[in-house]
């Protein structure tokens, strides 16, 4: 049965950002702790190494959280790194550097999403009709097609799947969606998600379970394809 086990098992996030995979990084590979220690002493080389090591993952998180807005994802990634290195001396190293960094990325994206929503509510109120229970109804414009331009040869079936995923994610609360994306798309462990979002592991588990149920229900038609 274990051969059927999804490749969603807990993987150290660092493995995805191994500097050895970076064609632009050369020289000895230092541990995060050493680079952080040097960064605290304003060593520009150490700062650059940490950026190169984690920018792809940070960008991917921002891209998913900002509904596929590549330009904004780049800007927010940059903001998050700048914030992180301006506050690096306050980093107590109780957690790993990357969970601390991802927490900053997630908070930066949540703030950006909130700001964008406020502006949209102000200028396009008709897009934010309320549900019967008074909760705001998510607009599909919040989750644009991520590769409408980059994947012109995508099949109709693939497009349909993407639309259905988009609708399924729209049915999740903001917190459920973030947790689901961090787990499924970024392959972060529940412990890492909890640390990055400042939540208890039990809370993350509950949200993940509920989000999975909702998505599974919405995408029921795709299980046999």
């Amino acid at each position, binding site marked *: *049965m*274990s051969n*059927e*086990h*999804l490749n*969603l*098992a*807990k993987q150290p996030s660092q493995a995805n950002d191994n500097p050895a995979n*970076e*064609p*632009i990084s050369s020289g000895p590979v230092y541990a995060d702790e050493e680079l952080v220690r040097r960064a605290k002493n*304003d060593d*520009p080389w150490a*700062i*650059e190494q940490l*950026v*190169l090591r984690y*920018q*792809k993952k940070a*960008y*991917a998180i921002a*891209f*998913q959280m900002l509904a*596929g807005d*590549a330009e904004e*994802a*780049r800007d927010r*990634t*940059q903001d998050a*790194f*700048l914030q992180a*290195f*301006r506050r690096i001396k306050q980093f107590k190293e109780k957690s790993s550097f990357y969970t601390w960094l991802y927490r900053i990325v997630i908070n930066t994206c949540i703030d950006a999403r909130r700001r964008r929503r406020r502006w949209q509510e102000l200028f396009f109120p008709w897009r934010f009709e309320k549900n019967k229970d008074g909760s705001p109804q998510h607009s599909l414009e919040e989750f644009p097609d*991520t*590769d409408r331009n*980059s994947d012109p040869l995508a099949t109709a079936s*693939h497009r349909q*799947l*993407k639309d259905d*995923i988009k609708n399924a994610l729209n049915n999740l609360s903001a917190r459920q969606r973030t947790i689901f*994306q961090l*787990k*499924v*798309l970024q392959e972060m*462990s*529940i412990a890492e998600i909890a640390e990055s979002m400042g939540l208890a592991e039990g809370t993350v*588990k509950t949200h*993940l*379970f509920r989000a*999975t*149920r909702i*998505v*599974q229900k919405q*995408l029921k038609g*795709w*299980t046999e394809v």
Partner: protein
Amino acid sequence: MQTCEHLKENLTLYTYGELDPVTSREVENHLKSCEGCRQEHRRLSTILAKVKQASAAPQLSPREARALASDISRKLKAGSRRTWWRQYLDLTPSRLIPAAVITAALIIAVAIIGYLNLSRTTGMPPVSMNQNEELMLSDKDMEILDNLELLKEMESIQKLSRLVDPNGKTDSQWDRGNDTRGMRQDEYRHYSV
């Protein structure tokens, strides 16, 4: 085929690889014997794989990655080169809030000290009280004031009589002969002989 309801959460966590080894083995043993849960596990695995495949974020190209890294380095350097006075003018909430609190505390402290000093050193009634001084005077005070007027009148009469009769008695003589007051001049002469 029905899924065992009580195992749903563990089955989801098993699919995510989030169960501890003991519970994971228990779920695996259950899956061997339960067709419903096996199908459920397969369906969930398929959906999650499709979501992951369809929603993958585009990778930053090496050029974009380099540009992002150099932008961050440049902005960090620019930030550290800021002059001291610009750094102090950086009105971030972390600086504004303590500054506002200190300013408010200083204003309150200065106001309290000022008020205490003022009331201790002057000991004078406020100006507004002076304006109502007349209203504060008692009847007795008013009587003294009236008598004062009378004394002044008497003094004027004495001066006048000295002018009319320069060889007359002095004030002290007048004082000694209080009972002669109010007499006409001839009566007075007669009396004084």
